[in-house]
């Protein structure tokens, strides 16, 4: 029973990591941008949710109705105003987003101090379903996992069933020719960033309910996201989900062996995948 419990926890946690990773994966897929500030933007989303909850007196999930559109607009502006100018080569986007990461952390520190905060979701945090006397599954992790699957399924639909998704894929294939066909690349890239940050907002709220956050929490989240993306295989959304689940599992099992071990176990699993299958589990991009 103990083992079943660990596995279920790991898989459900993996949904959260998949959410981190889906945003990263989307940006990389469309414009080959590795967003080092991704984790910090998750933290920004968490702060936005925190203050929305205070201002409007609503719960964390309701706050998403404000945070998702707000951060999507921020993402669009960020891409058009800054990141579009860094694209084209490999190094500039890395440097620019790294700088952005440092700036975001310090601005958050100035504005909100180093105090750790959490989002309180109320009694649902403690609620669980008891399957057997020994086996109970938390309601919140299940919701989190279902939302993750729904978000990734939604992204998949957008990518393969809509005009916008077609433009995403065309721009990813060949930006010059896409432009010739009347696609405004800068606009498409900005929409991709907006979509990525909308996903980030959902991830940010879930993580902030689960654990406390402070202005310097971002880089750790970024690592989890990277590991999930790379384990899953670049460019494949369902692969990203699988990568997230694998990372969650490794951490849960590691934590079971020793309380201090979960993150190490996650990194070890990541390195093992890199050694055995460097292209990831379900690779799509052949670049």
């Amino acid at each position, binding site marked *: 029973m103990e083992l079943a419990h660990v596995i279920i926890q790991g898989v459900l946690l993996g949904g959260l990591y998949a959410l981190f990773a889906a945003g990263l994966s989307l940006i990389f897929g469309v414009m080959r941008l590795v967003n080092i500030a991704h984790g910090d933007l998750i933290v920004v989303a968490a702060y936005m949710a925190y203050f929305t909850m205070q201002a409007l007196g609503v719960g964390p999930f309701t706050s998403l109705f404000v945070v998702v559109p707000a951060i999507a607009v921020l993402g669009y502006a960020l891409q058009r105003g800054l990141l579009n100018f860094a694209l084209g080569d490999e190094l500039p986007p890395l440097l620019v987003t790294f700088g952005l990461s440092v700036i975001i952390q310090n601005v958050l520190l100035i504005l909100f101090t180093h105090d750790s905060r959490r989002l309180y979701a109320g009694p649902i945090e403690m609620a669980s379903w008891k399957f057997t006397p020994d086996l109970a599954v938390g309601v919140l992790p299940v919701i989190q996992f279902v939302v993750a699957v729904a978000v990734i399924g939604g992204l998949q639909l957008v990518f393969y069933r809509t*005009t916008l998704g*077609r*433009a995403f*894929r*065309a721009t*990813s*294939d*060949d930006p010059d*020719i*896409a432009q*010739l*066909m*009347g*696609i405004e690349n800068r606009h498409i890239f900005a929409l991709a960033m907006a979509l990525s940050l909308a996903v980030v907002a959902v991830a940010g709220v879930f993580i902030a309910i689960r654990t406390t956050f402070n202005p310097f929490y971002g880089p750790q989240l970024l690592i989890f996201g990277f590991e999930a993306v790379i384990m899953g295989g670049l460019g494949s959304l369902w692969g990203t989900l699988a990568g997230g689940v694998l990372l969650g599992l490794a951490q849960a099992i590691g934590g079971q062996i020793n309380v201090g071990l979960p993150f190490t176990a996650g990194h070890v699993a990541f390195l093992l995948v890199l050694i055995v299958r460097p292209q990831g589990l379900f690779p799509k991009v052949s670049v």
Partner: protein
Amino acid sequence: MVPEGRRLFSSLTVEENLRIGGQLGRPGPWTLQRVLELFPMLAERRSQASTSLSGGQQQMVAIGRALMSNPRLLLCDEISLGLAPIVVRDIFQRLPTIVAEGTAVVVVEQDVVQALAASTYLYCLQEGRVLLEGASSSLSREAIKAAYFGV
């Protein structure tokens, strides 16, 4: 615009490639339906990945994609590049249909026989300068040869 080397969107299907061309919604004679009538072999392959097509079929997609924007002027760069002569002839045979819809076509082509047969007016360029020009029917192959090689 039909770029040299076709440059289709590799992760899109045939139909998606064509639709991308038409997404600006400029009105005109060319619709997905009409393009697939012009190149019937694409109709059977519309949901295949564009990379799974032969070179000639890919060239048809590239032309179709350009037509979908209903251009006043269709620019074709090196249609024959890397294609079998029979396929090149097949593609050139569709050009009159395109012109008949009121679209002007400019073809950059190294295959002089095809170029002469398909065009109404011809320019020979060398290093950016026009060496020879005239109605295609008035120019002999000897004159073109002389213009390029000076013999």
